[in-house]
């Protein structure tokens, strides 16, 4: 059996026909050509009016019905229970325990990828939403009235989700990645973290209401919900429908803290990619500096990684803010605050592109483990073989190193071209004159080229 090291190792050195840096030049040229094509041929906003049309009534009734919702909720709660149980009772080996792969790969990456294609899949399977709704229904049955909730502070917006997202990634790549181990997170820690998070979410739902907290504070709902706006499937008033791709992103960033969520998403992926590559020597120097000051090795490692992760967050935010600042100089520009919020949705395709570029191969390899030996032997103790696949392994030959590289480059280029398109479309709303709108987008072009080149640089260093 092939054992898969639970590491974010991307791919081995490839044998590319041209140097990796030339791809950054090629991608930049694609963006510049797209920019001029948009300026020449896209002269009125097309994404602002979301043309939603319902799908067949039978399909809607089936998928959005109460029994279907209850069933999906039960599946979500059951899987959360399995992950917690495996974490508490299973082996300490991260690569053999169901909990780690399930939480950090199948859920974290799987829902992000598939939500972008198929809509908000996490919502029906969200175990905390299902539990919150069940508790609410129980309360109504006993007390005869709906539970009273506090008014959610408007200014808080999606900030709890942004901090939660950083905390989740911190747990995986800083807390679990320290001490020289790629992901040394103990499955027991994952289980305890899941229990603590469950208690926190249920308490917040009791305070502010289930749907209110899912829309603003629940990390996974906000994160996967953000990606689901890219796709063409959506639910309105309990009915399943179709909408133009990308159109639903235009209304996503209206809540405070949304910019922080999408910036945190890009920054956390960047940090994970840069930790063992581009930032390695800088992290090493800072770590040595901390050690020289008498800080214990593990604490010094975690402290250094945390600082660099926050620096990534600040750096990505700064590049975006510079782009917004640049747009502000164009004649007829709205306020800085309006521009900052108004263009945040153009970063969503980039967040997804970074996620695909960094984790696509990891996801493909690790899911083979998830659906074979981890499913048959969730505790990893070699005592069960539920589906007869406990002795299966991972086939690394399903993806060649070059294929992975081309998917990474393709994801980055497509993601940034889509981001540029969304930004151009929004500029046409803010600047009635399309020439001014195009001029304002020079700045977003610079932002997109910067993110593309940075992304490719991170991958080239990680792959080298």
């Amino acid at each position: 059996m092939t054992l898969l090291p639970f590491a974010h190792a991307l791919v081995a050195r490839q044998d590319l026909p041209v140097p990796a840096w030339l791809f950054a030049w090629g991608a930049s040229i694609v963006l510049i050509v797209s920019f001029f094509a948009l300026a020449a041929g896209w002269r009125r906003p097309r994404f602002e009016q979301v043309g939603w049309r319902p799908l067949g009534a039978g399909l809607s009734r089936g998928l959005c019905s109460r029994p279907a919702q209850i069933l999906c909720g039960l599946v979500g709660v059951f899987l959360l229970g399995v992950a917690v149980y495996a974490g508490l009772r299973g082996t300490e080996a991260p690569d053999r325990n169901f909990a780690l792969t399930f939480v950090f790969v199948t859920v974290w990456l799987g829902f992000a990828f598939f939500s972008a294609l198929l809509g908000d899949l996490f919502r029906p399977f969200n175990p905390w939403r299902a539990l919150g709704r069940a508790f609410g229904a129980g309360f109504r049955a006993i007390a005869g009235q709906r539970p009273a909730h506090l008014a959610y502070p408007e200014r808080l917006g999606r900030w709890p989700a942004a901090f939660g997202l950083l905390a989740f990634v911190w747990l995986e790549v800083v807390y679990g990645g320290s001490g020289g181990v790629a992901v040394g997170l103990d499955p027991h820690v994952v289980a305890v973290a899941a229990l603590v998070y469950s208690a926190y979410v249920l308490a917040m739902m009791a305070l502010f209401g289930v749907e209110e907290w899912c829309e603003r504070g629940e990390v996974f709902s906000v994160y996967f919900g953000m990606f689901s706006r890219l796709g063409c499937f959506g639910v309105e008033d309990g009915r399943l429908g179709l909408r133009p791709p990308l159109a639903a992103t235009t209304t996503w960033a209206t809540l405070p803290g949304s910019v922080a969520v999408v910036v945190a998403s890009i920054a956390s992926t960047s940090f994970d990619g840069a930790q063992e590559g581009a930032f390695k020597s800088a992290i090493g120097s800072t770590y040595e500096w901390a050690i020289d000051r008498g800080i214990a090795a593990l604490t010094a490692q975690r402290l250094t990684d945390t600082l660099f992760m926050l620096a990534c967050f600040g750096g990505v935010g700064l590049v975006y803010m510079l782009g917004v600042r640049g747009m502000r100089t164009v004649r007829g520009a709205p306020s800085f605050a309006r521009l900052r919020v108004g263009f945040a949705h153009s970063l969503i395709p980039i967040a997804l592109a970074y996620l695909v570029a960094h984790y696509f191969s990891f996801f493909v390899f690790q899911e083979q483990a998830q659906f074979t030996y981890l499913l048959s032997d969730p505790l990893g103790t070699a005592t069960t073989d539920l589906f007869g696949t406990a002795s299966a392994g991972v086939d690394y030959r399903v993806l060649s190193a070059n294929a992975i590289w081309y998917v990474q480059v393709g994801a980055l280029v497509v993601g940034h071209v889509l981001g540029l398109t969304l930004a151009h479309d929004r500029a046409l709303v803010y600047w009635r004159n399309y020439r001014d709108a195009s001029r304002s987008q020079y700045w977003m072009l610079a932002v997109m080229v910067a993110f593309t080149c940075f992304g490719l640089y991170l991958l080239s260093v990680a792959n080298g």
Partner: protein
Amino acid sequence: MTLPLAHVGHYLWVLYLIPVLLVIGGIVRTMLVERHRKDD
């Protein structure tokens, strides 16, 4: 004579920075040209 290329790998990041600087340079140049045209 051998060229001092032993550490060239450390500076490959410059090649990723150049397209970004070219685009920013282009933006600044366009802005300056427009400002001059307006002043005239």
